[in-house]
C-alpha cells in the first residue's frame, strides 16, 4: 500500500514539528558522541533530516513495541558509521530509553560503534563494512514479494560508499527484478574520510548511474524537510526501485563542523559540545521566528 498521495501543502506546523525533532536528534547525536569520545559526527549530522522524515514524517511503518512485526518497513543504515543518527531516532521513536544513548561504544552496550543486527531493537542489518546494505535490503524486498507482504525497504547509503562495486551489483539486480518496494537514499554530502569525493573518486553523474541501472531517480536538498517528505511520497508505490539523491552538508547544523571534513571521524570535545548546542538553540529560535513570520504572511495573503 502506498502512503497517501503527496499533500502539496504539508502544514507548516507539521514541518515545524519535524524541524524540532531534527534539532533534538542533532543534540542527541552530539551528546552521545561527546560522551563516547569517538565516532562520526559529520555523516551523522548530514543525514538528520532524511532519518527524521523517515521515522517521524509518516514514511516508515513501524511499531517500537513490536520490533519484529513481520509487516514493518525495514530501514537499513548501510553507511553504518553514521549510526548515532539512527540510535537517536530509535530512542526518540521509543525503541529504547534515551539514557542508553550515553552507553554508545562502551563495553556491554547494545549500541555498538556500527549497527549490529540482533543487538538494539530496530536495527535491521549489521553494517560498517561499506557497500553491503543495498544487497541485504534487496533480499528483504524480494522476501516481501515472495510472502506477498507489503512492507517497503529503505536503504541509506553514503556517497563515498557508492564507490563500492557491490552497490552497483545490488542496483543492477534490483533494476533487473523491478523491485518496487526498495528505496535507496544517497546522503550526498560530498566528502569521504580522506577528502572531497571529487578529488578522490568522482561519483558524478550519479543520477545517471542509478538511471542506467533502471532505477527512478530524484535529486533533492536533503536538509529541506518539505522536499525530503515529498521525495519519499514520490518514491513509494512506483513500479521499479527508486533512488533519492539527497544533497547534504557534512556536519550540518554545527557551524564549525559544516563542510569541515576533520569531523568525519572525530567526536566533539566538551567545549565544542557546548558551542554546538548553543548554536542549535539559536537556530531553533530563528526557525521559530521564521515559521511565525511565514504563518503570518500566509494569513495576510489569505492562504
Amino acid at each position, binding site marked *: 500500500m502506498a502512503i497517501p498521495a503527496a499533500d502539496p501543502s504539508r502544514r507548516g506546523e507539521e514541518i515545524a514539528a519535524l524541524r524540532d525533532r531534527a534539532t533534538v536528534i542533532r543534540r542527541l547525536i552530539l551528546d552521545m558522541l561527546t560522551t563516547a569520545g569517538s565516532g562520526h559526527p559529520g555523516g551523522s549530522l548530514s543525514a538528520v533530516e532524511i532519518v527524521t522524515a523517515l521515522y517521524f514524517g509518516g514514511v516508515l511503518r513501524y511499531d517500537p513495541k513490536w520490533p519484529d512485526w513481520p509487516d514493518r518497513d525495514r530501514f537499513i543504515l548501510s553507511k553504518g558509521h553514521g549510526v548515532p543518527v539512527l540510535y537517536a531516532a530509535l530512542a526518540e521513536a521509543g525503541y529504547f530509553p534515551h539514557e542508553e544513548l550515553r552507553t554508545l561504544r562502551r563495553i556491554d552496550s547494545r549500541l555498538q560503534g556500527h549497527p549490529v*543486527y*540482533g543487538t538494539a531493537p530496530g536495527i535491521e*542489518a*549489521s553494517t560498517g563494512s561499506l557497500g*553491503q546494505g543495498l*544487497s*541485504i535490503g534487496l533480499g528483504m524486498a524480494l*522476501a516481501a514479494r515472495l510472502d506477498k507482504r507489503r512492507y517497503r525497504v529503505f536503504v541509506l547509503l553514503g556517497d563515498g560508499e557508492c564507490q563500492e562495486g557491490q552497490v552497483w*551489483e545490488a542496483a543492477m539486480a534490483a533494476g533487473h527484478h523491478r523491485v518496487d518496494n526498495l528505496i535507496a537514499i544517497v546522503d550526498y554530502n560530498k566528502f569521504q574520510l580522506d577528502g572531497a569525493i571529487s578529488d578522490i573518486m568522482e561519483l558524478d553523474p550519479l543520477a545517471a548511474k542509478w538511471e542506467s541501472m533502471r532505477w527512478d531517480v530524484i535529486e533533492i536538498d536533503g536538509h529541506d524537510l518539505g522536499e525530503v517528505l515529498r521525495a519519499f511520497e514520490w518514491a513509494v508505490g512506483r513500479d521499479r526501485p527508486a533512488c533519492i539523491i539527497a544533497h547534504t552538508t557534512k556536519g550540518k547544523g554545527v557551524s564549525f563542523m559544516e563542510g569541515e571534513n576533520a569531523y568525519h571521524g572525530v567526536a566533539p570535545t566538551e567545549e565544542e559540545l557546548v558551542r554546538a548546542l548553543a548554536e542549535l538553540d539559536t537556530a531553533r529560535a530563528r526557525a521559530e521566528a521564521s515559521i511565525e513570520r511565514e504563518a503570518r504572511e500566509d494569513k495576510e495573503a489569505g492562504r
Partner: protein
Amino acid sequence: MKELYPGLEFGKATRDAYGEALRDLGRQYEDIVVLDADLAGSTRSAYFGEEFPDRFFNVGIQEANMVGMAGGFASCGKVPFISSFASFVILKGFDQLRMAVAYPKLNVKVAGSHGGISLGEDGASQQAVEDVALACSLPGFTVCVPCDEHQMRAAVRAAYHHRGPVYLRLGRPKVPVIYRSEPEDFAFGKAVRLREGTDVTVIANGLMVGAAIVAHDRLRDKGISVRVVDMATVKPLDEDEVLSAARETRGIIVAEEHLIHGGLGSRVAQAVCRLHPAPMEFVGLDDTYAESGAPADLLRKYGLTADNIVDAVRRLLAR
C-alpha cells in the same frame, strides 16, 4: 580417476547429490529460496530452479551481492541456499559472509562447488584450496565436506534443519561411494568410524575418505592396522573421536583435499594438542596452488592419493 580407488564403486558427484537433495527439500519446505551466481548448471542448483522458478534467483556474476541478498532473505524468515564455485562464493563473498551472515548469525546455507583440485583442467583459479580454512574462521559457521552422494544428501537435509550458517563443500567429479545409502544417523559434528584399526588413525573427509580406505586395505595386507575416520564436519569437530584416536592408536594422519594449514588438519591438531598430544602427519597441499590437468594426474602430482596416505603412515610409525 577410478584407478586411484581400487575396490571402490563409483557413484555420482557430490554436486549432483546436492542439486537433487535441494530440489527434494524444496518440495517439502516452502521457506527455502535458492540463489546462484551464474553457475547453477555446474553447482546443480538449477535442478531447484527448474522446479521452483519463483524461489530461485540467478543473480548473475555477483557473488558479493548474492551473499548480501541471502542475509536479507534470512532475516525475513527464509532459508536461503546459495551456491557458486567454492573459490568464488567463499573468496569473493567473504566480507559479505562475515557481515551479512556470520556476524548477525543468520540462517544462510552456503554451497561451494568444485572444491579442491579434483575439478581438474580449469586450473588453479577455479580450484578452491583455502575455502574450508576461510569458512572455519567465521564464528558460528558449521563447515562440512561430505565424501559421497549419500552423505551429501544427508548433509543438505541436516543443513536445512540446522539453525545457523552452514558451509557445504561440493565436488565436481564422480567419486567413490562410501555409504550404501543415505546415512540416517548423519549429524554435524559426529564423525563416522569407517574401519577399525589399532596402529594408527587416518582422519579424512571429502575425496580423501576413499583414499584412506584404499590405504587401510593396502596396509592391512602388510600387517598394519589403520583406523579410518570420516570427519565430514570440520567445524564443530568431533573431539571425542579425535581423543579416542589419540589415546588408542599411535598417532593420527589427517588427509584433506585442501591446504594442510587452516583446514581439517589444523583443527584436529589443535584438539590433539589440547586433549592428548600424539604424533601427527598431514596429507594435503603444502602452501601451494595446483594447476591444470586431469584430476587423477593432479591428485598424484600434489600428493592426494592412497599412496601418499600409506607413506604418511609409514613416516609416523617410523618416528
